[in-house]
Structures are given as structure tokens and as C-alpha cells.
């Protein structure tokens, strides 16, 4: 086993990992940073974010308004100290990206342009046309090339953390081009590996989003938090699930059912707004959870349009005009034509809700710390409780910047102060165990299960049991199914026994991670007998603040289902209230 010694190791080189690495390199060039990822940085899924990043910049806006939108959008499950810190830091981080060269779209006077986004009372979403995440990722990646203290390990697949005396000491990763195992020893580890949307069958998420970092921390004894909150984005292309940004609606696009009727007005988001006029925080600019739920109700009423890929409604942008679409939504036009054969300039685009984002993740606090000394997490991997029960669009790109920088500062302070002795033999013992787990999987023979088969059963079970609407019965079925699938997972046999770029092996490891995290989603949802934000129970339709104004924690229990526990929500100045997205709301 090869050994790499570093000061701070970051797993994941998307937006969150890169921002963190730059923050360390900029302020402490004497610290060695190892940046490890299973893909090259520019392949990270940050690239697929389209609409933009929220931050208060214009004179008509205020930090209080951004705070209120975020807390209400999250159905009061956000930690309000975290939200406060976030809205305050957000503009600085977006300005920093401007200074690093992000090609933000501009007003005619040269100032940055902002667009409306769902659930936001004021226009505050900075954007680079409809490729905001792509540009943020490449700006960060290219900027990171400036810093000699950042050493990248591209295409290294991280398997598990090493922990001694309750402290995180590093991890074991496999170099994908050789199959060689590496033991990374670090004084602090920051996980930035993204979400786990690929556990669902129909998702905007890229193939790489398999929750590896979240599962690693979970196995090491760090709880996940609020995993039952899964965001369905209301507008995905039918066959592929490709995202059509909320910016479509921000720019004036509307949703219509089979009769051409703008049905959102029937679900507490009316009255209907004039076509081509965007009225903030109502109708199509309501929050994602409400819009996806409205689709489900329309489906029940028979108002959706049946297609060979399932039921759909229409996202109509035909009134926006070619010039506006080409300027503000060029990617949306390209994607619709390429992947759905529909030109949004000429025809409404058939869409349906699609799994997009996990509000839950590794339990972290306002300092991006986990419960384990020396281990930090940031971005979709983490749950700092900014987003509560439903994330507002354009808060997550800003989140990874704000908390990337914060994680860096706190990891640096930790590394400077940590005096705990490093037990090398203990770490090596663990590393050997991790290696043998991989070797066993690689060499196992006589198995009858297939990766694709188990993956499909897992995904279908989650969609059926833990989708937009859930019940005790459907969730219990899913929980049972997941326990069964975890047992059957042990019967997988790999056909590929080779060392070089063995994607059979990596897919098996990814599936193992997804299965473990899927249990935290389903078990958390089963235990939460209320409806809040993205978690909707047909058998418990109301929000229950007495019992469930709490974060769900899930603890790993080996082969068994997780142990569920709860954690207080931080409420500072906004007591739980009513989410009002009607046009009459104040």
C-alpha cells in the first residue's frame, strides 16, 4: 500500500472541494492540501447546475429578506444561525467569483445581473446565462491551478475513512488507472463528494452522484441528518430526466396541464399571474416542493398528459421569444431540441418532476464540523441545515462557496491546534481491513446477483415508496425491500477482476454506498409522521411542530437498518409560521 502524507485532505473536487482547497491555499500556502476525486475536477456534477447562485447585491434587497425566504422555503427546519451566517457571506463569495473570472451575465451598466427564482421574494439570483454551475466549476478549477500547495489526485476512488481514538486520520483510496491502494494520512479530512440522487430511478444527477462521502462518514459512526428530505425538481425532460432550470420560469415560462390550464393556481399559488409578467414568490415562482406536489395532484385528477415515458405537463416558454431564450436560456433550448426533439421557441416542452437534490447529508454544524474530530463536510454531501425541509433554487451553489471557505478556516484552526498522537500501527491495521474488503469483493466467486439488477430494484422501490407522496405502508415496503437488497448485495460477483480502470468494481462500491444511504432516507421518512416541505405523508398530512420540529439523525448499525434519533432545530428569530405562496402573501 502506498502512503501519502498531507496536512488537509479533501475528498471531492467539485465546487465545494475546489472552493475549500483554494481557501486553504490562499490563506496558508505552507499547508499541504491533497485534493482527491474519482473524476477529473471539471467532470464534477456542479457543472450541471444551470440557473444561478443567490446572494443579496441589489439596493432593493436585504439580508433579512433572503433569510426569511430561506427559512420559510425550508418549512422552518433550517437552523437559523446557519441561515443568518449564509445570507451574510453569500454576496462576498459571489463577488469573489467575479474577481476570479466567472462570466456572470451583466446589466447594460456592467453590474451583475440577477434573475427571479422560486420562493425568493426579490430578484437575487446571479447567473451566467443558464450554465451557472458549469462556469462556477470551471472558474474554481482553473483558479485552483494557481496554487502550488494544492496537489490533485484525479481519478482516485476513496473507499473508507481511517479513524483512531475517535479522530479521523485520513482514508484509503484506490488509484483507478492502476488499482493500487493508497493510504492518505491527513491531520484533517474534508468531505465534498456531492449528493446521492442516483439512488432514485429518475434523476437529474450524473452517474457519479452516489453519495460515497456521506456513506463513508456514516459507516465511520457519524450520523446522517434529514435524509428523508429529497427534492423533486418540477421540470425535468421526460425520457432522460435532464434538468430544465428554474430560470425558465424565472424568465417567464409557465406550467400548463393537458387543457392548457395553469394549474398551480389551484394549489395555493394563485391567482394566475399575467402571461409574460413574472410575479415573485407565487404561481410558477413558488418553491419546488409545492410545484412537484401540485403535479402529483394533477396526475391524480387525470389532468396530466400520458406519454410513453409516463405522465407529463407542459413547460411553456413560447411567449418569451427567440431572442430572449437565446440570450438567457441557450442551454435549455439546446437540451430540449437534442434530448426531447422540441424547440421551446416554438412549442411547449413536456416535463415531469425529477429527483434533483438531497437536503440531507452528513450531520454538520455551522462550522462545517461533523461529530468526529478532524472530519468536516461541505456541499450536498453535508447537511449544515441551511436548506431545511426544502431547498430554494440557487441557494446550493452559494452554499458550497460559503461553507467551503468556512470548512477551510476551521480545518486550519484544528490542524494548528491538534496535539493528539498519531497511532500509525492502528491506522495501518484499519487500512489493511479496508483493502481486504475491496479485495474480497473483487475476488468473490459464486455470486448470482447483478449490480444493475439490484440497483434497479432499489431505485424502483424508493420511487414507489418514498417518492413525492408517502405513506406508512409504502415506506414500510421500501424499508423491507432495502434490507433484503442489502443482504442480496453480498451475493454480487464481479466479472471484471482486473486492476486497470475497473468500473465494474467502482459501480459495485457505489451501489453499496447507495443502498446504505437509501435506508437512511426510507427509515427517516417512516419515522417522521408529519408532512413538512419535501416530505409529504398522505397518512399524516399536517406539519407537527410539537413532535417533529426536529432534525432526524440516522446512525449506522452494520447490517441492520439505521438507528433513528433526533436533534433540535436552531430557531433564533423566526418562529414556525405559515408558508404562503399565494399572490396575496405579504
Amino acid at each position, binding site marked *: 500500500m502506498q502512503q501519502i502524507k498531507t496536512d488537509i485532505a479533501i475528498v471531492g473536487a467539485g465546487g465545494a472541494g475546489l472552493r475549500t482547497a483554494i481557501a486553504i491555499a490562499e490563506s496558508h500556502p505552507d499547508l499541504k492540501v491533497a485534493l482527491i476525486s474519482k473524476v477529473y475536477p471539471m467532470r464534477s456534477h456542479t457543472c450541471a447546475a444551470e440557473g444561478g447562485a443567490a446572494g443579496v447585491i441589489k439596493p432593493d434587497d436585504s439580508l433579512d429578506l433572503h433569510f426569511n425566504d430561506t427559512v420559510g422555503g425550508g418549512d422552518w427546519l433550517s437552523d437559523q444561525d446557519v441561515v443568518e451566517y449564509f445570507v451574510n457571506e453569500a454576496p462576498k463569495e459571489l463577488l*469573489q467569483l467575479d474577481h476570479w*473570472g466567472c462570466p456572470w451575465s451583466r446589466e447594460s451598466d456592467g*453590474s451583475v445581473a440577477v434573475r427571479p427564482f422560486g420562493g425568493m421574494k426579490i430578484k437575487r439570483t446571479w447567473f451566467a446565462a443558464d450554465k451557472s454551475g458549469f462556469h462556477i466549476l470551471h472558474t474554481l478549477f482553473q483558479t485552483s491551478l494557481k496554487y502550488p500547495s494544492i496537489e490533485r489526485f484525479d481519478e482516485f476512488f476513496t473507499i473508507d475513512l481511517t479513524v483512531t481514538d475517535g479522530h479521523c486520520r485520513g482514508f484509503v483510496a484506490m488509484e483507478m488507472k492502476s488499482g493500487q491502494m493508497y493510504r492518505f494520512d491527513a491531520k484533517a479530512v474534508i468531505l465534498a463528494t456531492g449528493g446521492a440522487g442516483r439512488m432514485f430511478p429518475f434523476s437529474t444527477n450524473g452517474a457519479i452522484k452516489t453519495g460515497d462521502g456521506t456513506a463513508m462518514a456514516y459507516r465511520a459512526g457519524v450520523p446522517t441528518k434529514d435524509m428523508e428530505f429529497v427534492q423533486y425538481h418540477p421540470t425535468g425532460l421526460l425520457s432522460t430526466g435532464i434538468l430544465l432550470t428554474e430560470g425558465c420560469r424565472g424568465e417567464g415560462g409557465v406550467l400548463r396541464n393537458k387543457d392548457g390550464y395553469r394549474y398551480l393556481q389551484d394549489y395555493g399559488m394563485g391567482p394566475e399571474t399575467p402571461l409574460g409578467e413574472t410575479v415573485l414568490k407565487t404561481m410558477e415562482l413558488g418553491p419546488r416542493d409545492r410545484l412537484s406536489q401540485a403535479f402529483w395532484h394533477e396526475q391524480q385528477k387525470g389532468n396530466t398528459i400520458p406519454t410513453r415515458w409516463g405522465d407529463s405537463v407542459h413547460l411553456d416558454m413560447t411567449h418569451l421569444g427567440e431572442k430572449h431564450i437565446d440570450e438567457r436560456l441557450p442551454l435549455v433550448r439546446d437540451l430540449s431540441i437534442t434530448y426531447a426533439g422540441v424547440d421551446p421557441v416554438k412549442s411547449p416542452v413536456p416535463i415531469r418532476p425529477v429527483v434533483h437534490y438531497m437536503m440531507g447529508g452528513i450531520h454538520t454544524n455551522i462550522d462545517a464540523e461533523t461529530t468526529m474530530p478532524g472530519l468536516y463536510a461541505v456541499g450536498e454531501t453535508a447537511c449544515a441545515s441551511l436548506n431545511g425541509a426544502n431547498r430554494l433554487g440557487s441557494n446550493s451553489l452559494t452554499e458550497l462557496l460559503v461553507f467551503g471557505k468556512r470548512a477551510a478556516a476551521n480545518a486550519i484552526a484544528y490542524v494548528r491546534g491538534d496535539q493528539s498522537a498519531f497511532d500509525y500501527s492502528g491506522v495501518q491495521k484499519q487500512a489493511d481491513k479496508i483493502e481486504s474488503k475491496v479485495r474480497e469483493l473483487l475476488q468473490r466467486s459464486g455470486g448470482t446477483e447483478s449490480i444493475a439488477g439490484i440497483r434497479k430494484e432499489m431505485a424502483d422501490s424508493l420511487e414507489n415508496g418514498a417518492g413525492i407522496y408517502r405513506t406508512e405502508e409504502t415506506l414500510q415496503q421500501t424499508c423491507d425491500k432495502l434490507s433484503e437488497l442489502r443482504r442480496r448485495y453480498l451475493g454480487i460477483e464481479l466479472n471484471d477482476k482486473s486492476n486497470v480502470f475497473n468500473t465494474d468494481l467502482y459501480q459495485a462500491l457505489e451501489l453499496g454506498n447507495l443502498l446504505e444511504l437509501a435506508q437512511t432516507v426510507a427509515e427517516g421518512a417512516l419515522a417522521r409522521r408529519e408532512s413538512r416541505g419535501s416530505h409529504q405523508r398522505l397518512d399524516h398530512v399536517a406539519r407537527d411542530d410539537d413532535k417533529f420540529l426536529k432534525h432526524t439523525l440516522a446512525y449506522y448499525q452494520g447490517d441492520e437498518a439505521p438507528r433513528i434519533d433526533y436533534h433540535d432545530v436552531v430557531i433564533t428569530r423566526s418562529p414556525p409560521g405559515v408558508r404562503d405562496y399565494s399572490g396575496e402573501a405579504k
Partner: protein
Amino acid sequence: MSEIQITLEILRYDPEKDQEPHFQTYPVTCQDDWMVLDAMNHVKDHVDTTLSYRWSCHMAVCGSCGVMIDGAPKLACKAPVRDYADRTARIEPLANFPIERDLVVVMDDFMDKLKRVKPYIIRKEEKSIEDGEHRQSPAELKKFKQFTMCINCLCCYAACPQYALIPEFIGPAALTMAHRYNQDSRDQGQADRQDEVAKPEGAWDCSFAGECSEVCPKHVDPAGALQQLKIATTVQWYKGLIGMGGK
């Protein structure tokens, strides 16, 4: 639902086992709206799990799945199977790169070259965050915006006849990125990039065959960028000659 029959003829190479790459053939029944990547995923999931290739986003933005399809560099996720209906499509790794395994190529050369052109904002004095944003007019943005669209898929390198002949050539995507920053009104680093861009294997190695722009799945037009870069390099050289170096 209508189906399409295609046959994928995929280059296979396992350096631990194979002396030479060879082709393996997979007939695939596809849905008519599939891309070649979907057909490859079908093979991977249901026919031959040992097949190795890179992919992630399936929306032509992560740049992972560049391959040669019938000799032309393309993103597998953006190549419709209907273009290859009822016939054989030959899938090979991107040309001009060493093969790591099957359709996976070694990218180290590009990663090194990208870093060498200093693809980041260089300022004589950093602007502080308190001073707010750089003002940049829509016209100033337009000067370089197109060149920011590169997804590093490397299709342009696979198409470039000069890169095939002269591996030292910095090549279309990396040089385009140098030009992108040179053209950004927030940047003052043109002189810092000059050495790399102006050396023989820099912009001047481009023979303006234009293949790069033809195959670019994001319409970046690297060939156009390189011609502009040559002019800028010459101007910079003359400025240096009369003692006006730097931007």
C-alpha cells in the same frame, strides 16, 4: 414505441491481458430516442460488465464521454442512435491519446498544458471584495464568452492534424483558454501568458485546418480563437520590441 437496431463495434484493451487492442461486437436493440451512450450503458448493465468508459452527466456538459464514432470525435451522450440505425457503429477511444483501458484515454498531457497557459485571472493588484464587482459591459463579456464554453472533452485534440503530428503542440482547448483570459476585461495577464503562447509549439503551430471547430460539441470555435491569438501574439511581440510589454 419504436425500436432501432444497431451494432456497436467497440475497441477493447486491457493492458494487463492484451498485447494489442481488438474490437468486440455487441448488437443492441435501442429505443429510438437513445444516444450512443445509452446503448453503451445497456451493454455495460446487461451484456458485458467489463466494458470500461467514462461518463457522468448525460447532458453534454461534463465532457467525460468523448469517443471516436466511425472515426469522428463526438460526445457519446449527444450522438443519437438513429444516425447509426441498422448498421455498425465503430466506437474507439479519442484519437491522439494513449489508451488506458478500453475507451478510457490518458489525459495527463492536456491537464499539464492547460495549467501551463495560466487559465486564471492575473492582476497587478487584486481588487478587494469590499470594492464590489468589476464592471463589465455586455459587449466586453461578449468578447470572450464563447471561449468560456469549452467543456474540456478533448474532441478537438482528437481531430487536430497538428497535434497528431506534433505532440508538443499546446493544442486547441488549452490555447483557447489562454485567449479567453487575455480577452477578459478583468484580466491583466496577457504578458504572463505570452511565453507559453508565443513559443513554437504554441499558437503558431496551428495550421488552421479548422477541424477543431468543426467537431466542437459546444461551438466554441477554437480555430477562430487561435487565429485571434496569433494576431495578439504578434502585437505583443512588437510591443515588447519597442519597450511597451505588458498589458
